[in-house]
């Protein structure tokens, strides 16, 4: 973002494009200006607005862990015009980046706690840097339980990292799909049913969940049944966004702007919003 105009993005170059699922690609970007690159630090949960020049802008969570030498990674699901054209980009193509925007998961406050991660589909994208931050600082956190759900086995994102996650100390990875196929030996169950089956204790535990609205709704019900209090459940709100600066008012809910006051909220905070979705 240029200091003269916060609507002007930083220029970046596509370095890597990895196909994660039939409709999701992971874009690895490098900011062109070395000074900007050195200063672009962010936390898990924050997002950036990507430009496909000539097509438009859309917000995406940062799927990587902040590192001065690291690429900025974004998991992009093909769903509209901007995401389609971002997916078509080849390495060395120019893109725009504005950000980082928004608040982050309160991982610093969760030190010493067990972490229970529940992600569905592309909802795993903001949770990936949460998992990787915990694994890089493994001694700071208790047990890590991850439920990763998707529609079908081929829709599970970040499969290349499953072995690393599952073999990390005090870490349990549970995969589930809505519909299996012949070669699938894993679970076929909806995410809330898996929560009930695993029955994790809410004691000294924080639950972090991201996924489609319908999954979130039944996940919250299940977590509450297990005794999780609303201040122990953290999620992200999805609203249409344009500016990322709290100006355009597209993501306004009550006196909040999801782009600057969120996107991360506890269920306790959300339950106090005047407008409920």
């Amino acid at each position, binding site marked *: 973002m*240029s200091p*003269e*105009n*916060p*609507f*002007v*993005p930083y*220029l970046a170059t596509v370095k890597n494009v990895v196909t994660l699922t039939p409709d999701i690609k992971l874009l690895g970007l490098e900011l062109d200006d070395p000074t900007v690159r050195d200063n672009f630090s962010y936390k898990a949960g924050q997002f950036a607005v990507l*430009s*496909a*020049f*000539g*097509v*438009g*802008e*859309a917000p995406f969570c940062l799927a990587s862990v902040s590192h001065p030498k690291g690429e900025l990674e974004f998991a992009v699901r093909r*769903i*509209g015009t*901007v*995401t389609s054209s971002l997916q078509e980009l080849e390495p060395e193509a*120019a893109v*725009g980046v504005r950000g980082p925007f928004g608040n982050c998961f309160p991982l610093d406050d969760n030190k010493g706690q067990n972490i229970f991660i529940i992600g569905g589909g592309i909802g795993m994208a903001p949770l990936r840097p949460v998992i990787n931050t915990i694994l890089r600082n493994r001694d700071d956190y208790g047990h890590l339980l991850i439920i990763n759900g998707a529609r079908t086995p081929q829709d599970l994102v970040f499969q290349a990292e499953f072995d690393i996650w599952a073999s990390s100390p005090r870490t349990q990875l549970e995969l589930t799909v809505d519909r299996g196929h012949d070669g699938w030996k894993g679970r076929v169950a909806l995410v809330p049913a898996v929560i009930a089956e695993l029955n994790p204790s809410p004691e000294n535990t924080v639950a972090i969940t991201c996924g489609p*609205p319908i999954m979130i709704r039944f996940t919250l019900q299940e977590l509450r049944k297990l005794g999780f209090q609303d201040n122990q459940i953290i999620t992200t709100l*999805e*609203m*249409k966004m*344009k*500016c990322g*600066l*709290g*100006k*355009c*008012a*597209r993501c*306004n809910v*009550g*006196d909040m702007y999801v782009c600057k006051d969120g996107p991360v909220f506890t269920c306790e905070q959300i339950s106090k919003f*005047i*407008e409920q*979705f």
Partner: protein
Amino acid sequence: MTQTISRRNLLSWLGRLLEERLLIAPTHTTGPILFQPVSKIEDIVLDFDNTALSAKEWFFPATETLFWAETTDGRTELVPATVEREAVVFGIRPCDAKGLALVDKAFLAEPADTLYQQHRDKAVLVGLSCRKASPQCFCTSMGTAPNDPTHVDILLTEVEEDYIVQIVTEKGKALLPDNLLLESKVVPPPPPSPPVVSAEGIEEVMRQAFDSPYWSRLADRCVHCNLCAYVCPTCYCFDIRDYESKGKIERVRSWESCQSPGFTRQAGGYNPRASKGARLRQRFYHKLLYFPEDFGAIACAGCGRCVQVCPVNIDIREVIADIQTIGGRNVP
């Protein structure tokens, strides 16, 4: 003592300003009275109730380029838009100046919208007090008045053939030479007094009325034409889009309205505010509750344009009065 300027001196001053700066004033060269860049002084309308649109569009245009992206030999360069020209906005009514002050609260809060900031910094506001209130006016209920100098740099109030001059800011003082002014004993005329709508305590009753069926009933007749937002001096929601023609790309922002179904519709089709009732409610809640919670003032200047243009007679004054009555009761 009061300072005045004669109509003749006023016009000759405007003539001089026209040579030095962009002069934007009410004109009827395009039909309805609108703020337009003036090319000759005779086009300026001095006798009018209010302009069809507020002067907001000269600070926050209906469509405005944010930057251009140019690609040459595989290298992309971004050229940000800037505001170069000094401007005078002449003839703005106190309500519309208050509207700008309200948009300032949102756009100039950190991180500031620098393009809007440049438009504001480069322009001097010369206000004109209202001689009469139109049927739709309710400015005094929204914390301003027909002769309120608070949000302009200079305020002129017509008395017979002259104008009483109130220099409000340093910017205004620098614009108007002293030698054009006369000392006078003329007494300012009493300002018109538009009917009052009591918005006292509106935030508390809005908090109670959120789940009332009132909103969906009111919205039954809404045709989501968005006119209320487009004529509003305080509505500031916008969209951002790219346009490409002949290899040249521009990123443009344009007015958007919370009444349009696409306002909150996400890629993939999910729309958290899918019903007209929820959208109309958002309009009134943003103005009467959320903006006051965030910025300490109702997002309305009482100009009444939305009342005037609504094709189905949705009237914010009636909404305020209705909500005051409904309060926490769950019946309209």
